[in-house]
């Protein structure tokens, strides 16, 4: 039994909305980071769903690309968060606004 395309899309959209809400409302950098990962993977899910429905490889290619970039991003992002924590003993994003214009 195959799952219809719409299910995947709804799930992807729901995951994206959850992630986006997390980014907007949470102050803990680590949680915001996880929320961003959630958004990325919701898009990945949408990509593979379309790839399967359309019978092409384009979506899967995009997903592989996203995973690589996300992996790199994790390295940089986590390193930044660790450094911020070391400097301030806190990872509250609202306390980090030195780049105010």
């Amino acid at each position, binding site marked *: 039994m195959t799952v219809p395309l719409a299910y995947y899309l709804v799930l992807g959209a729901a995951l994206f909305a959850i992630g*986006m809400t997390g*980014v*907007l409302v949470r*102050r803990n950098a680590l949680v*915001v980071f996880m929320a961003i990962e959630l958004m990325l993977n919701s898009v990945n899910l949408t990509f593979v769903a379309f790839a399967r429905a359309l019978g092409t490889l384009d979506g899967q290619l995009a997903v592989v690309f996203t995973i690589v970039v996300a992996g790199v991003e994790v390295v940089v992002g986590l390193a930044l968060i660790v450094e911020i924590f070391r400097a301030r003993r806190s990872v509250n*994003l*609202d306390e*980090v*606004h*030195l*780049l*105010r*214009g």
Partner: protein
Amino acid sequence: MAELAWTIPLWPLLGWLLLGVAGGRLPRPLPGVLASALVGVAFLASVAGAATYPGTPQARTLSPWIAAGAFRADVALLVDPLALVMALVVTGVGFVIHVYSIGYMADDPRAATYFAYLNLFTAAMLLLVLARNLLVLFVGWELVGLCSYLLIGFWFTRERAAAAGRKAFVVNRIGDAAFLLGVLLLWTQAGTLDLAALNARAEMLDPSLVFSAGVLLFAGATGKSAQLPLYTWLPDAMEGPTPVSALIHAATMVTAGVYLVARLYPLFAHPGTLAVVGTVGALTALFAATVALREWDLKRVLAYSTISQLGYMFLALGVLAPSAGIFHLTTHAFFKALLFLAAGSVMHAMHDVIDMRRLGGLWAPLRVTALAFLVGALALAGVPPFAGFVSKDLILERAWEHALAGGGLVAGLLLAMGVLTAFVTAVYITRAALYTFAGALPPDAHPHEAPPVMTVPMGVLALLSVAGGVLGARWAGAPLLAALAAVFEGALGHAAPAHAPLGLLVPALSTVVALGGLATGWWLHRDRREPALGWFGRAAEQHWGLLPLYDGLLVPAARRAALLLAGPVDQGVVDRAVNAVGGAAVAVAGALRRLQTGYVRQYALLLLAGTILVMAYWVVR
């Protein structure tokens, strides 16, 4: 061997690079020796090029330069008899003057810089005379102007020297603007800047265009060659070291205008252009000679003399005698460089005194210098058999022929002015010689003759001033004129003289005029007398009205215009516009920076809002 000709300008350029980079670190006489040696090599290369000249003009492209659409200009050299004669004069006289400079600049702390400039000048001048197209020629033209500026103002801590350098630069700029306009006109109308192609096409072009282009280029020549009305910078240029006056402001750079006209002679061979060239030349020759009569600075006398003799060369060009003009250019380079070097030796001995009222009696202590000056003076005055006689005589003869061949009233006047100039020339140079070398020594002076490194170059030039006439003497076969004939035959082919030969008439006349001038000069100024000469003397002192015109009217007006442009226009309009643009950017940025709060989550919200807006636009559309 023939390949050596292409390397001629590179040797002094190498000298400039070496001295410019490391000259200050070399021990004392070495910069001068190196510079002289490299110019010597360039001279040998020129000799080799002349000896192996195959009989037809040779062209060589050294490197591509500009190629834009139909426009093409390469760094290309052209070797033909005219270019070779000029290269030989530049490197030959240049070498002698470089050697003299070793002695003259021996005590100057910036001698290495001096020789670097002198080498750069030589390279630029060689580029000018060997250029194959007008644009490369223009590069050389501007570079020699730059070197002239640098060397006039070489002792720039003296206000007068710095001002003289600026003046030379500004006055030349006026001529150069016209020159550039001429080049542009030729490019748009003739479609090429190649010198040979321009000469070949001159006949086919619209005569009025040929006339305007010729006059524009000639206006450039009046700047570089210090002709009326742009002559004022050359007398002031005497503030530079004397060897510079000899090399740049007598023998080579100032002759660039003559060379330019000769190089493009088919283009200038329009009757109207020739009339302009000849008239300006003759007027300048007479004008500057009379001014020299009332000048007290020995070097400035020689400067006015140079202006006058350059006028002679343009007179020759104007009466269809370009070979005679180039011949006079050559002999003039010998004897005028000699006169300047002798004047430099006088300055050297008298601790930079150059005012003739404070000189005198130098014949006894400075025997070699005095003899050198005497030879130069006799050559300048045109006494046979000195070189100046042969070339000046040839110009007068050609002017006479031109008048006979239907030149009309103008040609007759040119001839008369030429003869009169010859007379005045003999008078003023006699005056200068009497004031400097005759009479009694100034009481507190203890002059000593210059070292051999300075006297030997003077000896060489004296020899050339005596014997240089051989190059154009009829009994010697006139090798120089014969070589140049091939260059000009295209332009002169249709103007073959058809009249009886003049025989000894002109030589006899010019001999009488020269000797008469010498006698008059001696009679006027014997025992250091200075006759007032009445209205003539006053007019000469006032440059026939040009001095009040320039210093009283034109220069103040130009200065006011410049101040207006620099103050209200540049600072008030241009600078304020620029500042306003900057101020606007600051104001806009000041408003926008409020968006940058530093809160990451706020940025994310804005991002989301933007995304929603874009998507809404897609949906609604």
